[in-house]
């Protein structure tokens, strides 16, 4: 094979890997949207918050250290050596559940029956709130997140692909990040687990009932409030996974929450109500933006990844407003 073909394959592969990462964030959106009809803009910030909290627990930071120090003139930073990664992940999960409960209790409960767009704007407020809170709690510096997943390029894959090149051409093999492969694996596991959960457990069935019809679910005795807490907890869990993967990839920093914005076109492509849609949409966006940048980017100045996803979504919306797998939109007066 000629190097051009091989390079294209490499771009596509890397695009797929990036796409998986987008899908991870998009999954959280879909879960909440299905169960409560809320378009949760804060999903990306949830991931950031989860990652920050995880790093905080791991390294044993004192929450709000900066605020306390600035107010009382003290000098606390760490309360110890930090804790075991597994324990830290469990504790972070507990924090996310608590957060889900608080969000339901303090915000969502009061916004029942409001228009979707009002709820959307409320989650933008929530996003700002969490962003500030995360920074106040754990400090705004860029943090390194290491949960023991392997990372870096795969030499094995490089060696294998080098042999594919045609004789006499200069080709040094494909680069693929092991971490991305792990992320893809974890995403697959996550989707399988979520599907099994919603198909075979009692809570999962209740979730689907609520997604189908709020009022009907209420009449058969499903507590909407509990379900919402459960859904937001699951979304918090997905955010934690996404936060770990993104954090391990590019450090825990503010730009993590911008990933959420990238997840929006993913959702539009996949449809807001479909879990497979979120995955396929993520892959399409990932491959699309990498290929576009590779093929057309150099001609028009590069950095097209900033907007390609949104413009693609824009054109897509013109022809299929409900997304690839979304339910048909029927409007009545």
């Amino acid at each position: 094979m000629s190097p051009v073909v091989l390079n294209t394959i490499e771009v596509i592969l890397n695009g797929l890997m990036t796409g998986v990462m987008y899908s991870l964030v998009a999954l959280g959106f879909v879960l909440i949207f299905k169960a409560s009809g809320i378009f949760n803009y804060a999903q990306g910030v949830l991931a950031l918050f989860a990652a920050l909290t995880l790093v905080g627990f791991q390294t044993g930071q004192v929450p709000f250290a900066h605020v306390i120090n600035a107010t009382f003139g003290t000098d606390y930073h760490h309360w110890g050596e930090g804790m075991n990664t597994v324990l830290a992940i469990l504790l972070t999960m507990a924090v996310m559940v608590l957060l889900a409960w608080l969000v339901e209790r303090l915000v969502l409960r009061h916004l029942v029956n409001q228009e979707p767009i009002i709820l959307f704007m409320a989650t933008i407020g929530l996003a700002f709130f969490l962003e500030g809170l995360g920074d106040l709690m754990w400090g705004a510096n860029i943090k390194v997140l290491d949960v023991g997943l392997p990372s870096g390029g795969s030499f094995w894959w490089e060696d294998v692909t080098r042999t594919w090149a045609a004789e006499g051409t200069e080709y040094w093999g494909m680069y693929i990040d092991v971490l991305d492969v792990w992320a893809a694996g974890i995403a697959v596991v996550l989707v399988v687990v979520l599907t099994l959960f919603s198909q075979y457990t009692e809570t999962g069935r209740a979730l689907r009932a609520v997604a189908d019809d709020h009022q009907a679910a209420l009449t058969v005795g499903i507590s909407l409030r509990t379900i919402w807490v459960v859904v937001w907890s699951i979304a918090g869990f997905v955010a934690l996974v996404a936060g770990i993967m993104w954090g391990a990839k590019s450090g825990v920093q503010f730009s993590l929450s911008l990933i959420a914005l990238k997840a929006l076109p993913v959702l539009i492509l996949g449809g807001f109500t479909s879990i497979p849609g979120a995955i396929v949409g993520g892959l399409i966006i990932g491959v699309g933006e990498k290929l576009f940048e590779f093929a057309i980017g150099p001609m028009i100045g590069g950095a097209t990844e900033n907007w390609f996803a949104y413009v693609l979504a824009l054109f897509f919306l013109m022809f299929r407003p409900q997304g690839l797998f979304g339910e048909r939109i029927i409007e009545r007066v």
Partner: protein
Amino acid sequence: MFYREAGDFKTSYVDDQQTFPIRFDRWGVRVLLLVAFLVVPFLINDYWEKSILIPFLVWSLAALGLNILTGYCGLVSLGTGGFMAVGAYASYKIMTAFPEVNIFFVILLSGGVTALVGILFGLPSLRIKGFYLAVATLAAQFFLIWLFNKAPWFYNYSASGQITVPERSVFGIVVTGPEAASWATYLFCLVFVVLFAFVARNLTRGRLGRSWMAIRDMDIAAEIIGVPPLQAKLSAFAVSSFYIGLAGALFFSVYLGAIEPTEAFNIDKSFLVLFMIIIGGLGSIFGSFVGAAFMVLLPVLFKNIMVGGFGWPTDMVQHFIFVLVGGLIMFFLIVEPHGLAQLWRVTKEKLRLWPFPH
């Protein structure tokens, strides 16, 4: 006692349809305008100009624009930053290409250019709505900023990629560039704000405004009773973008003077304006002003209290303001979805009945 329609007899249709039906309101507005035009210019200093008054005026215009689109027509846009950038770059290109054109008309023309761009990006609104549209407008935000970064024609091939405003004057008084006096820039912005607040107020009371509100309340029903959705939605996008373009042009030429698109017009600006209209009041001209004032004053106030008073570091105060603004947004959406303007409306109702509320 004094705040009521009773005793204020209207003898013609013109009287009956005036903007402020209550005498007290009319006098209030007149006094406010007099103070703004004749008193403030003599008291203004550099600090008040740069950190409070000009930002307030510029963001008021932007909030007015977004309120027309979101509050009156129900189309949520997250592309405000991008449209402001269009206004800014349009004014820069017009100023440098046609130096003889008066700055006043340059600003108006930039608004016009932005309106055209707005219509273009508003086209998808005919098929999609709600947050689908919000995502579509993100395309405008990111694409436009990228374009202004990457196409050197827009910044006249300058090496830094920045655009810097040339010095321009109105009636011989310098209003742009570093030499401009505080009172001159203030008055220049004020003229635009007052003029276009008046236009917005009357647009929203007229046929066009009513068709926007019909679309907002239920677009299918509106279509059935004969409101053309194409006209209504695209005109909302055009008018809204015009205002936002004006705000962007003033933001660049009068307020900052030199800008770099990624910093000056990033997505945070879009959210800032959205927050202004949520806090101020969706679908209210008055609310746009209150919201802009609130969002401009809040950070200034907290910076003064916390950095000056408690001695907190600046970045921490910044995060604290994030928490506060986020919390306030949720609070307002829960407790008072119609914003501060609604509080004022309620007060007015109470005043009308005072002192005999029953």
